[in-house]
């Protein structure tokens, strides 16, 4: 008997719990709905956390719960660790934190499935529960190790480049088939714990082997996919426990991750299979077209010239890439933008979906620097505006503004959707030197008729631009 529940009302408790789960599910959906605008998003997050709170609280009255010492201790430890992580993390490290959380979520679901297995070991199992158990265990364990590898790569512990050994695709496929075989054996003979343990081990191994060959540039896709998998693992755990709240919430998260994965793949113009098995970035950089560029020269611009160009412009669009965050230049660019606005210039930010290291990362970094969110424009919105733009400032971005993606079928990034900055009256590219970018691909934009280079560290260059604007 649950010590929290008086005997007189014990009969009503299961229904109360189910109805509260329904309420919690509704709160999750309403919470996600409110994320459709930055103005309502914060209240949406509150609604979702309220849903979580009542869902957890009412579970404590479940008749299967008879002792609380592990619950109190576990929740206390988890809450302290979670709160510290959430408070300390830098916004630039958000991809690492999300990876870590993905891993913990996967581990929790795998553990719940294992716990159920050992708890019910004495009772006869239904085949469906067994099937769900395998799915939850497999996805959860794979997500755990996969996320830890992703975390290590993002953090720089493991090095960002893909780790590939000959025949790794065959090994991965063979392991997958092996899991299927053991899953069938397990469902047929659930009493045999060896099968269960073998599946766990294989899943942990597959997680590692799947993420190791994926390069640092593809991490946004991997994080999104692992995010989706944590949701699906929770959903499968719901099938094991016959718990609708778990099924619904897990599936909502699964859809969210899947949508983000598809958006990221589209933004990089690569099918998911190519990301997972292609080991992009390990191939030697292509010919790069140096011969064709030999005779071309770039025009340089000084801070004084640029201050005049921008101050008397009608519209300036800033195109930030992750290089901006690396140089810690978010605050300076906002000061430049404020200064221009005070002179009557219409300032906007055009943000490519893969500008940061995870979906929407650049927007968060700019919001942290107090850039008002109505100035942040998505690729599709801003692409219609470049024709009416006087000056584009490209800072720390390279491949996402490379016109070869549109014009040159032989380019490795051909077909990738880009920001059409070359349609503006003039483009100023902030760059350290003429070295090619991350993907090692030459950028024709630099040699364009209306292009100007501003060489130097992004933060210092913007600082001198700000100074010149003040003196104007």
């Amino acid at each position: 008997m649950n010590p929290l529940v008086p005997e007189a009302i014990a009969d009503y408790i299961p229904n109360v719990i189910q109805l509260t789960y329904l309420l919690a599910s509704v709160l999750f959906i309403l919470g996600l709905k409110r994320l459709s605008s930055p103005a309502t998003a914060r209240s949406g997050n509150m609604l979702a956390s309220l849903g979580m709170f009542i869902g957890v609280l009412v579970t404590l009255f479940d008749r299967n719960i008879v002792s609380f010492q592990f619950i109190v201790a576990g929740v206390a430890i988890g809450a302290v660790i979670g709160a510290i992580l959430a408070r300390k993390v830098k916004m630039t490290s958000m991809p690492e934190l999300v990876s870590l959380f993905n891993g913990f979520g996967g581990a929790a679901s795998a553990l719940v499935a294992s716990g159920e297995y050992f708890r019910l070991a004495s009772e006869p199992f239904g085949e469906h529960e067994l099937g769900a158990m395998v799915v939850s265990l497999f996805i959860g364990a794979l997500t755990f190790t996969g996320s830890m590898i992703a975390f290590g790569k993002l953090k720089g512990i493991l090095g960002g480049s893909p780790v590939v050994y000959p025949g790794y695709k065959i090994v991965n496929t063979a392991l997958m088939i092996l899991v299927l075989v053991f899953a069938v054996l397990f469902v047929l003979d659930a009493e045999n714990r060896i099968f269960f343990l073998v599946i766990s081990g294989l899943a942990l191994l597959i997680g590692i082997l799947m993420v190791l060959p994926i390069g640092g540039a593809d991490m946004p896709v991997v994080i999104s996919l692992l995010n989706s998998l944590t949701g699906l693992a929770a959903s499968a755990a719901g099938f094991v426990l016959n718990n609708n709240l778990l099924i619904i919430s897990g599936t909502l998260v699964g859809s969210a991750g899947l949508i983000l994965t598809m958006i990221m793949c589209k933004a990089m113009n690569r099918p998911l299979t190519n990301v997972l098995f292609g080991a992009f970035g390990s191939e030697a950089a292509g010919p790069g077209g140096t011969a064709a560029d030999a005779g071309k020269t770039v025009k340089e611009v000084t801070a004084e010239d640029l201050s005049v160009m921008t101050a008397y412009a009608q519209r300036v669009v800033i195109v930030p890439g992750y290089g901006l965050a690396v140089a810690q230049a978010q605050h300076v660019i906002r000061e430049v933008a404020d200064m221009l606005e005070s002179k009557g210039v219409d300032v906007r930010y055009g943000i490519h979906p893969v500008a940061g290291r995870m979906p929407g990362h650049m927007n968060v970094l700019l919001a942290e620097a107090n850039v008002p969110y109505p100035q942040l424009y998505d690729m599709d919105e801003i692409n219609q505006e470049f024709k009416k733009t006087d000056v584009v400032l490209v800072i720390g971005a390279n491949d996402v503004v490379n016109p070869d993606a549109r014009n040159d079928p032989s380019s490795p990034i051909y077909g990738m959707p880009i920001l059409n900055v070359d349609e503006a009256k003039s483009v100023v590219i902030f760059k350290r030197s003429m070295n090619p970018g991350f993907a090692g691909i030459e950028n024709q934009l630099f040699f364009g008729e209306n292009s100007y280079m501003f060489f130097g560290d992004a933060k210092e260059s913007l600082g001198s631009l700000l100074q010149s604007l003040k003196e104007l």
Partner: protein
Amino acid sequence: METFIFNLFIFILAAFVGFEVISKVPPTLHTPLMSGANAISGITLVGALIVASHVVCTITCYIGFVAIIFATINVVGGFMVTDRMLEMFKKKGDEQ
């Protein structure tokens, strides 16, 4: 079998609701969406609570205990960090 079919109904319908709702989230909020979704996937805490509590504490209890810790980190950390991010999204007049 019947429970399984019923669960499958819930699963499929939830997937459709998820796709509808989440495709309306603008790219600006994709990072908070992800960390918020992370927090929601911590719902597996509900399952962990049931696993962790037993009269005779066997291996199940300890498995459940670790699951509770992991899931709670997700829930608490996920919602808090999402709130921290969303607080930063402001319009011009909103500052101070």
